[in-house]
């Protein structure tokens, strides 16, 4: 039990000291996960919205597939990306393995299905409401997509946060493609895994506390932004 008290003390000390190693790791975590969320949103939002509004044969198969891909294990994603980017792999020449770029790619693959699946559901329900009007107006598919995504933006924010949560908390994939190399690809989760394997559970927990604080900060900032947005725009 003393581990708990100890780890809060450690977390506090690390944070107030602004430990430069820690700052580096936190920075990389944020950079990698936020980039992955951004890229995933760029892919997953339109994809999910398209699935939510289009009606075509085989649509439900597609939906099942995207939903199932939410269950893609990080380790498997990591392996796939590893095989692709390794020197023996087809994209080895890009020399991306063990770089933040590789980690962004892996996390993007991991969370795009989550964003797409949740977006699909949200957009589908909004589209039920708007569909007749859009059809009557003759809005182009791209126009519908844009309008649905825009009008659902507050719900999609929660989706984005779910994606961010998964990305920032993820360890399996970034460990394999990033290698947890100190000063190069070490992020919060891989650092936690390392301290755990060293048996330094208190430090590991302390890092966990900091990671949670980080997630909290990101979420709170987003909600604040949303709050002001709602005040100036409309529910």
């Amino acid at each position, binding site marked *: 039990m003393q581990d708990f008290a100890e780890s809060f003390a450690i977390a506090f000390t690390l944070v107030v000291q602004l430990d430069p190693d820690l700052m580096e790791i936190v920075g990389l975590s944020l950079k990698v996960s936020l980039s992955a969320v951004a890229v995933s949103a760029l892919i997953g939002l339109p994809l999910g919205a398209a699935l939510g509004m289009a009606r075509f044969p085989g649509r439900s198969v597609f939906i099942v597939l995207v939903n199932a891909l939410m269950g893609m294990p990080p380790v498997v994603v990591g392996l796939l990306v590893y095989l692709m980017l390794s020197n023996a792999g087809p994209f080895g020449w890009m020399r991306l393995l063990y770089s933040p770029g590789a980690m962004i790619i892996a996390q993007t693959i991991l969370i795009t299905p989550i964003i797409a699946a949740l977006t699909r559901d949200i957009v589908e329900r909004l589209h039920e*409401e*708007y569909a*007749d*009007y859009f*059809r*009557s*107006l*003759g*809005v182009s598919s791209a*126009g519908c997509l844009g*309008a649905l995504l825009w*009008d659902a933006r507050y719900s999609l924010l929660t989706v984005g946060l779910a994606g961010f949560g998964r990305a920032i908390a993820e360890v399996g994939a970034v460990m394999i493609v990033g290698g947890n190399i100190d000063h190069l690809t070490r992020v919060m989760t891989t650092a936690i895994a390392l301290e755990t394997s060293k048996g330094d559970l208190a430090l590991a927990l302390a890092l966990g506390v900091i990671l949670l604080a980080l997630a909290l900060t990101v979420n709170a900032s987003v909600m604040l932004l949303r709050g002001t947005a709602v005040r100036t*725009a*409309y*529910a």
Partner: protein
Amino acid sequence: MLPLVTKNLGFKVNGAILINDLSMTLDADGVSVVMGPNGAGKSVLLRLLHGLMEPTSGTIRWAGQAPDEWLRRRQAMMFQRPILLRRSVRANMDFALRQRARGNQREKIDALLGHVGLKDLAERPARRLSGGEQQRLALARALALEPEVLFMDEPAASLDPASTVTIETVVRELKESGTKVVFVTHDVAQARRIADDIVFLHRGRLLEQSDAVTFFEQPSSSEARQYLDGKIII
């Protein structure tokens, strides 16, 4: 685009027959008013004619042409329950206008909103408007499209008397400018004021189509007579 001809039109959902073997012709001139008891199929018929749903049997021809996206873009529809985007009143207008032309159309929007008495509410969230205000916004939005055919599904149901006068004036002006209006209402007095011909539906069937005077003076079906008298017929 007219005349509009339907042949043996049918529409079924889960075994329920909502439109049953309906054949009729709507001519280019005059305001056509669709009447009939609740659940008769008026809204379903409008949605079929406008091309929002595919009939399960029969055909619809606009001047001989099957309905398609291009024909639909020359029409507009005011839904019985207005479908408003989760945006401001102005943004709703803007969205509709942008589907037809690029560029800033602020003046046009202001003029239209002024016309329906919503100018002061332009920045309100559209879905917070009162029932009548929502219907007026839907009207402004439909007029903005300058359609050749306008389907109006009980557009005056929640309007105050003055707005009702306005909308009837609008319908008359549209008719004069050559726009075909298909209008649904339960207000017999209103129908008498604006209708040139009447389409009377009952349980998904066309019971009567005749010019307004004939319909109101001597309806041929007993159902239409009962309907006009306020007797329960469904």
